[in-house]
């Protein structure tokens, strides 16, 4: 496993953060997990601005797990910003949300989400979903080459 790669988790609900991390760990995904609480933080993290100004802008995460329902800047806006920025245009983004509203799913894909995962109530199902995500994105998928 490539331990040096970071997973950016954009999630405001601490329980969900906990459970997601737990689920990742349960699946033996040992990457560093950076957690941001809202859209603004997420964009700051990626652009290495604001609170994350000390970060290297070149240090992009391996994958972004993006909740849609976020304070300040919504997930959809974050996704749009990521795709609008040539630097992060090819960054893998997995929309991870409890919403099963179809417009959300469609919008996500239209904006270039690489995947969409519905967070089930049943934790075991969530584990399974995460497991498959991890396998796919961190092992099988080749990340686009950095510039």
């Amino acid at each position, binding site marked *: 496993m490539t331990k040096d790669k970071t997973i950016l988790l954009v999630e405001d609900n601490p*329980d969900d953060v906990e459970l997601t991390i737990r689920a990742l760990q349960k699946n033996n995904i040992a990457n560093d997990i950076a957690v941001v609480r809202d859209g603004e933080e997420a964009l700051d993290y990626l652009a290495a601005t604001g609170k994350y100004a000390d970060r290297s802008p070149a240090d992009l995460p391996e994958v972004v797990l993006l909740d849609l329902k976020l304070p300040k800047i919504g997930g959809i806006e974050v996704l749009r910003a990521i795709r609008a920025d040539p630097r992060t245009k090819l960054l893998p983004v997995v929309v991870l949300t409890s919403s099963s*509203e179809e417009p959300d799913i469609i919008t996500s894909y239209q904006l270039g989400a690489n995947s969409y995962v519905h967070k089930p109530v*049943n934790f075991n199902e969530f584990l399974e979903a995460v497991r498959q995500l991890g396998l796919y994105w961190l092992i099988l998928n080749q990340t686009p080459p950095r510039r």
Partner: protein
Amino acid sequence: MVTREFITALAGNGALLLSLVYTYDLLNGIRWASRTRAGQVFTGIIIGIMGIFLMQMPWTFQNGIIIDTRSILLAVSGLFFGALPTAVAMLMTAALRLSQGGSGVWMGVSVIVTSGAIGLAWHQAWKNRLTELRFSHLYLLGLAVHLVMLALTFLLPLQTALALLHDIALPVLAIYPLVTAAVGLLFVERLQRNQTARVLAESESEFRALTEQAAIGVTRTEFATGKYVFVNQRFADIVGYTREELLSMTFQQLTHPDDLAEDLKHIDRLVAGTVHEYQMTKRYLRKDGTVVWVQLTVSPLVAPGEPPHELIGFVEDITERQRTEEALRESEEKFRQVFELSPLGRSITRTDGSIEVNHAFASMLGYTREELAAVKWRDLTHPDDLQMSDDLVSALLSGTAAEMDMEKRYLRKDGSVVWTEVHTALVRDTLGQPTFFLTTVQDITERRRLQEERERLARMLEQSFNEIYVFDPETLTFTYANQAALHNIGYTMAELSTMTPVDIKPLLTEASFRALVQPVVDGSRERVLFETVHRRKDGTEYPVEVAVQLVGEGSARVFMAVINDITERRELQEEREHMASFPARNPNPVLEFVTDGSPLYANPAALETLRQLGLPADPRQFLPETLADLALLAAQCREGPVVRELPLGGRIYRKVISAPDEKTFRIYTIDITDLKRAQAQVQQLNTELEERVRRRTAELEAANKELEAFSYSVSHDLRAPLRSIDGFSQAAIEDAGGILPQAARDDLQRVRLASQRMGQLIDDMLLLSRVTRAEMHIQPVDMTALAADAADETMRDNPGRAVQLDIQPGMTAIGDPRLLRIVYANLLSNAWKFTSRHGHAHVEVGIAEDPARGHAFFVRDDGAGFDPRYKDKLFVSFQRLHSLEEFPGTGIGLATVARVVRRHGGATWAEGTVGRGATFYFTIPDLHTPYPSKEET
């Protein structure tokens, strides 16, 4: 020795024998000598005397022996004179010989007998052919007689006989047969001559008889002079002269001068030999100066090898025949003229069907006579009349009728039809064989047309719907009533014939009736017209209009009454009055104007309205349009009634203007002041209402947005805590599993289950809400594919289930495929769920025909089923018929199904019994307006 005496005797005998021949000649001329018995005896005596003479000149051989030629005499006599004369001669000569006596007496008598007998024997043999005897035959006779004679010498003493034979045998045999033959030949010649003479005489007498008794005249004329040498009585009768007079006349004198040249020319040709006879018809001039026509046949009377010296003529009086022929010719000519010149068409039809026609016939049919010469009568006859014509022909031919009449149609050359009256007679010859039909044809087309016209008029009269009566001008009794009259009045014609018009007109008397028709009688009026009442036989009455006139001429004048039953007219009049009361009693103003605006009619209500409004009583108030407007109005009214509003005296009227014709307007008005007022209020209310609706709609839209936001936050925010509850319960079990007692672990497990169930509830409610709100995309849907897709998902979610699934192929519908897929997903998921207790389940998807609702899609399972009492609760949200322990579920699935189907305009229902499976039905109408989502919420 013998010779001198013998020859002398012989010469004398020869002379006597010759005299016998002349005796024969002599006797033959005397008829009775050969025809009567006495004559024959006389002949025999003559011959006997000659025999006696012969015996007087004998050569006496010796005493008592006499040789003479009696043997020849008797033999020839026997042969030519026959039995009786010869017998007499034999008796006489035998008597003489006996009287002479001597030694040769027996020989002498024997010679007499045998000579006569042999002659008679020859006679018998040659009886009818005496003329054919030849020298040889006669010589043989002589030889026979004299051989016998020589034989008879032996009746003498032998010495004498031998001496005699020695002396005479040679001369006798040399001379006697020759003499016999010579004498015989003389007889034969006589006989031949006699026969020729007899034939000639017979021929002569036959000719005479023939010519004398002939029915035609016979003449013989001298060729050189033309003198008559013979005429018969008939010829004399023909020319009226005596036969004696005629024998001094020539044929040239007798012949009519005009015919003589031709006659002579014929004779020249006879002479020239170019003809052997000629015939001609010529005239003789009779003694009395009249002319007689004869048929003359002339031939020359010629002897072979000589030029003609006589002409023989046969004359037949043909004056009578000539006259008959003349009469016949005249008759034929008359007939021909009658035939030709007749103004009636005439034709002669031969039995082969060919016809000869006269000019009138040909022109009647538009042909020339030449054209008709080659035409058969059948070709000219109208096809429909052929049968009738054939029948007539066969009737005539069979003899059942000699002549017949019929009416038939001929076809003219131009194809038109001619009606004719035909009279046909069959003419037969003297043997009764049909020769031809003589037909007289009269063109009756015009007559027929007139007749048909007359019949048509009579029929029109008879069939007229008007009652028509004819009655006598004097007695007034009815003489005729047509069908319509009889039918209506109810009397028969027999009954009417004793009645008068007064009898059926209860309102009139005879005097008043006569007064009514008097103008017609005195001629001051052509007809009179009056109304009265008729009484039928059954007593009922009806109003009538009567037109009476006199028709016909002189004594044939009759009254004719044409009756009009005016019951209907009366009723119409009443109805018209009734109808007229409608505008009159109409409480609304009704008016009529001429199109130029001048009033024609105003009903009482119109005038009353003007009065109440305090306006002048002028109907024009209701039509205030200017002249230009009126023209426009008239044009508009042609399209249909025009509706206008009319303010009048502070009130408002609606008027409907129509133009029933080009010249009038009709106006119907109604006071709509109150209506107008009410309309204004309604208008205002409507305006307010629309404003309110707009406001409410905006509110609703806002509420809807809120609802969507609510659903969104429910889907996120309501699930997040649940996820935490479930997740951390699990985490607790995992992290502290070892130290927690089993009961606590079970509790945590229950927490998890409860949170998961709530998550499911939330998901289902969101789905239900989405189904309700989602916009519909209607398109043709492959329901079979949808069902199969949903079934695949269900099977994925429920691995390890053995379910036999049958999906009917080819199911289609018009609807939203996304929503319809939810229907199948729910129903199939239910089917799987409720058959989970079965080891082997059967689920069927298809279309059933429902008698009330048509095509119904269904999903059928053989699972737990349900109590049909609760079937109405199946499709209600959160209603469950099973406990969670039995079958998990939220109770929202079927509600979702029902909502989707309802949005498609369809219906849902279910059938089932506990433990026997369930069937869920839904219908998707092909075309429908989807329920707007707002009303659904």
